[in-house]
């Protein structure tokens, strides 16, 4: 039986057109775009085309503002550390939010060891940052604000344009981690008004291991990877052409199909939430209902732990992800779920369900059926469920 993939965030299929572009890139064995001869010229031309395709996806004013990286994590590291290093003469204070991805958090942790100071603003129970809190957190020596576009665990979308208005007024560089948004919902760097924006190809049916960083012209930033003059002197190392060409085609298709994809995902999301609420008691749907990714549902299933759910559903041929500390390997409850007010136990029973173009309504229905059974089995062996029932009786 075909495995039902409700963990699209971890891996989504490469579109056939993307595969073809990558296979062609391998067959043609492109040269090095930096070479001064005709072998290199062909590669440089193809690379320029991919850059234009990607620039269009985020509506960058110039394709020169797009830097190819090895993925979302590198883009984020580059943005955060690159700005910190290049602007240390102005100050060492950075503002972020409580629910950022580990790529941001751990970049900041590294900077803290180098005497940078970080202020982290809270979020409300839906996971939204209040722009006023960002305004209050900015000090004279603040050099960077880094806030994500959408959250990878609960899907909440942040008021980025409003925050950018503040950072522009205060002349602070603004980086937006948009890895889970680009190619999924409209992301327009000009409308948003951000200085830096991170994204990754594998969130829009492109290959993993390739991403991009938008760097607005004039932004003071250092390279993260030092070496040659590739990528307009911003990211050294011979380009991953096969991956980049795949990303270019994926970006072009994302521009073309974005509305249809959003509509499809939105319908599935509604069906999924309706099914969960109708069939399973004592659940909490996390995140904002309006400002939210259409392709993600976070649900806390009370009295049970998520890893058990993942393993049991896997037996049924259904792939899901949990934010349980036990399954994460890190053994720490999700900082995102704790930030929006879930307690340790509810954080343990939280699933992240993500889906996309190949997902069908029938698959959603089959998942809800299977989940109902799994939840019943696990609750029947849960001491927390027993206590809750006794308390209710």
């Amino acid at each position, binding site marked *: 039986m075909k495995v039902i993939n409700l963990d699209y965030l971890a891996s989504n299929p490469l579109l056939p057109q993307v595969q073809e572009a990558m296979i062609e890139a391998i067959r043609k064995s492109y040269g090095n775009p930096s070479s001064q001869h005709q072998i290199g010229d062909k590669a440089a031309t193809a690379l320029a085309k991919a850059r234009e395709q990607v620039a269009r996806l985020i509506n960058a004013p110039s394709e020169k503002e797009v830097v190819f990286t090895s993925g979302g994590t590198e883009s984020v590291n580059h943005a955060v550390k690159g700005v910190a290093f290049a602007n240390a003469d102005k100050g060492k204070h950075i503002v972020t939010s409580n629910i950022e991805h580990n790529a941001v958090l751990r970049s900041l942790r590294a900077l803290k060891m180098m005497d940078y100071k970080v202020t982290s603003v809270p979020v409300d129970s839906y996971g939204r940052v209040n722009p006023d809190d960002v305004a209050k957190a900015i000090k004279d020596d603040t050099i960077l604000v880094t806030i994500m576009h959408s959250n990878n665990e609960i899907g909440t979308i942040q008021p980025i344009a409003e925050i950018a208005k503040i950072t522009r007024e205060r002349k602070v560089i603004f980086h937006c981690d948009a890895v889970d948004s680009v190619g999924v919902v409209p992301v327009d760097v000009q409308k948003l008004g951000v200085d830096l924006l991170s994204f990754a190809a594998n969130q829009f049916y492109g290959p993993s291991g390739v991403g991009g960083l938008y760097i607005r012209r004039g932004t003071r930033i250092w390279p993260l990877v030092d070496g040659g003059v590739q990528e307009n002197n911003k990211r050294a190392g011979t380009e991953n052409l096969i991956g980049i060409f795949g990303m270019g085609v994926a970006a072009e298709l994302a521009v073309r199909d974005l509305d249809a994809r959003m509509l499809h995902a939105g319908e599935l999301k509604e069906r999924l939430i309706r099914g969960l609420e109708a069939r399973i008691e004592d659940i909490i749907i996390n995140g904002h209902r309006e400002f939210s990714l259409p392709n993600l549902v976070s649900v806390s299933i009370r009295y049970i732990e998520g890893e058990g759910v993942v*393993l049991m559903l896997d037996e049924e041929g259904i792939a899901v992800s949990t934010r349980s500390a*036990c399954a994460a390997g890190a*053994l720490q*409850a999700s900082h995102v779920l704790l930030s929006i007010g879930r307690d340790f136990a509810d*954080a*343990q029973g939280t699933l992240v369900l993500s889906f996309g173009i190949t997902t069908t309504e029938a698959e959603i229905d089959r998942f809800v059926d299977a989940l109902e059974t799994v939840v019943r089995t696990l609750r029947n*062996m849960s001491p*927390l469920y*027993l206590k809750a029932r006794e308390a209710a009786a």
Partner: protein
Amino acid sequence: MAYSEVVMDHFKNPRNVGEMKDADGVGEVGNPICGDMMSIYIKVKDDRIDDIKFLTFGCGAAIAVSSMVTEMAKGKSLEDAKKITNKSVAQALAGLPTNKLHCSNLGADALHAAIQNYLDRQAGKADKETKRKDPHQHTHGDKCYCPYCDVEVEEASPVCVNCGRELEAAH
């Protein structure tokens, strides 16, 4: 899959699941940080564990550990059951992933707590509030160990040099 076949078998077909309303001893242990909670109920006859049940809130390993510990203890004398350790349970499960050893240490603890509760009741003592375990108090001797992978770490180290996880101040 990082779990052994024995673990998966006990997770998928857990033995001795359920509540025991007329238990002679109850052991409840929990771990507030990781979020695991385990209750073990025993019925004692002639100083032997005549029947045993468990309820567990926790990951696949925690459920498998509960199932295995109940199976190991069933029919044993209280003296022999006391000798069951977290290590022997993990061995019987053909090993657990290193980060799960820590998460699943509750099995034998819950069993021992249930036996102690039975003995206390026999001695006419009231039920004690079960102590909750804090996994970050893993200091053997004067050295500090990572609570996740048990490798020695420096007192002030913010991260474990072996597994890279962030460490709480007290470890």
